[in-house]
């Protein structure tokens, strides 16, 4: 094969990536549709109804009131009609109104909760990467050293540690014994009267423990994975070649090994989104934080169908977006994919 000219190869690379993204997006829309189909059916066929709160649990409301409420929410129609209606509205980004007492649009309620959850996850993800990647590299380069063994022990403990228990222990230690940090809520009582710097400090002190819990949760998996990828790369022939050329080991690790070992980590990041979303339910409920997880928990308890579906769709969209971003990043980072647009 002859070498393509730089200009042509850049255009080729661009079309290859664009094609890849287009194909991927189409497939993702299909997956999204599949997810809505399964969740809609599962949730609507399960026993209980959003009208339970106002009727069965209320001795003053009779059968007629229940029927009126069901007609109001459109729950008296056949399930496939409800689904088609819901799906059509979804195409206009209309998630419907919440079936809880406030009856506000689902999208509004989700959007006001989203920033907190995303911000907490983003900060902790950044911390995880900052800590786990060096740890993984060190363990792999000194495989079976005392350091490697120690890290392995910590990783196993991290894997086995239930996040909610860690949260309780941290609350007990930092919040109750030392009285350093508040143990619940997002802001203090006097938040409104604080200076901007004071507000920031107040928020930071409330979010320190939740972010710590998120970070510890992600650390074990990421550093273990980084170590495994690094070990795999260090076994390759081109590392041997680099060593044989007499390159300094620092350069070999940075230039030749690390850049290749980071590739699978990108994919792992994309795959970790569903876990983060699930984890937010637990962590937000322990620390009483007004995020997405807490919103979902309340919606489930009230059987707020539209709200639950909205959250499930959003969770799926975030997951798929994570996968897509990982895929694009992978394509940009890996010259083999850049060249022919296909992962081998």
């Amino acid at each position, binding site marked *: 094969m002859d070498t393509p000219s730089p200009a042509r190869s850049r255009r080729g690379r661009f079309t290859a990536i664009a094609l890849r993204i287009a194909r991927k997006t189409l497939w993702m829309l299909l997956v999204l549709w599949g997810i809505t189909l*399964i969740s809609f059916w599962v949730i609507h066929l399960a*026993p209980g109804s959003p009208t339970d709160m106002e009727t069965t649990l209320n001795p003053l409301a009779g059968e007629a009131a229940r029927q009126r409420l069901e007609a109001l929410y459109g729950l008296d129609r056949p399930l496939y009609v409800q689904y088609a209606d819901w799906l059509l509205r979804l195409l206009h980004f209309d998630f419907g109104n919440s079936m809880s007492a406030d009856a506000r649009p689902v999208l509004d309620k989700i959007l006001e909760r989203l920033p907190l959850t995303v911000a907490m996850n983003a900060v902790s993800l950044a911390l995880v990467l900052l800590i786990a990647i060096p740890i993984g590299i060190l363990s792999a380069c000194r495989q079976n050293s005392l350091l490697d063994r120690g890290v392995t022990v910590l990783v196993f403990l991290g894997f*086995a540690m*239930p996040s909610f228990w860690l949260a*309780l222990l941290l609350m007990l230690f930092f919040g109750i014994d030392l009285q350093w940090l508040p143990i619940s809520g997002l802001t203090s009582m006097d938040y409104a009267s604080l200076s901007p710097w004071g507000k920031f400090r107040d928020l930071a002190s409330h979010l320190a423990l939740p972010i710590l819990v998120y970070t510890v949760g992600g650390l074990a998996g990421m550093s273990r994975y980084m170590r495994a990828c690094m070990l795999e790369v260090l076994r390759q022939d081109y590392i041997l070649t680099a060593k044989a050329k007499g390159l300094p080991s620092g350069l070999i690790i940075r230039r030749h090994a690390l850049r290749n070992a980071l590739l699978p980590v990108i994919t792992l990041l994309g795959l970790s989104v*569903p876990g983060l979303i699930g984890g937010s339910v637990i962590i937000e409920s322990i620390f009483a934080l007004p995020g997405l997880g807490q919103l979902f928990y309340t919606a489930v308890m009230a059987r707020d169908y539209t709200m639950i579906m909205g959250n499930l769709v959003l969770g799926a969209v975030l997951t798929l977006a994570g996968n897509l971003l990982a895929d694009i990043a992978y394509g940009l980072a890996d010259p083999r994919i850049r060249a022919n647009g296909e992962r081998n």
Partner: protein
Amino acid sequence: MLPFSIRNMLRGLLGHNLMLSLGLGIVLIMSLAAVCAPLLAPYPPTAQHLDHILEAPSSRFWLGTDRLGRDVFSRLLYGGRVSLWVGFVAVGISISIGTMLGLISGYFRRWVDEAIMRLVDIMLCFPSFFLILAVIAFLEPDLTNIMVVIGLTSWMGVTRLVRAETLSLREREFVAAARLAGSPTRRILLRHILPNALAPVLITATLGVAGAILVESSLSFLGLGVQPPTASWGNMLMEGKTVIESAPWLSVYPGLAILVTVLGYNLLGESLRDLLDPRLRR
């Protein structure tokens, strides 16, 4: 710098064999404790000692008592039965589904494979904890529902694994020989291919038990799992959280039990994997 002999000793102690024996030991002890809970527990798990409410650990109540004056140690033992039972049944369900779909997918290939793999992709994109939470909340949170739902949302990894094994096994001579000899497909799959793909499945199952125990305790902690008065480690932690300032022991020991048990299954699974995967052995 540590003296050479001590370093060697530490190395030996923290080596694979230690991992395997530690994992196996924890799993055996925890299983035994759960099975023998009625014999080992000093009190029935729901017996209330009303004059000993929220008592700190003592010689009479080894790990203290809870808000209703129940013995925490006895409840921990009985809670272990719940965790173990959920872990095993949920994993049994996910392994059965995963193995079956994986065998079919890898053996028949073509559109069957395509369809099953796409289903796997969809399930992997599910925010599954959300779905588990919703379904459990709707279906009355009881033990059977929890096990079934955890099982139904965690088979995808097994399917991929078994499919990959089947894809390579189906090209081997002994499978061709069985086909030539006229064995029915079902027999080829179950007698010739499955036994050869079993080792990695067992490892996944061991790690799956750990995962299922964690999910069950998270659900119970949120109040959507095993319902009081039945003891489970998760709901003990939930009850303890309300009195975390005055009775911290209620928030410490059940979590420790989860940690140790999950650690045991993880150690066992990982060390088995290392033993079976010659590439990782050094």
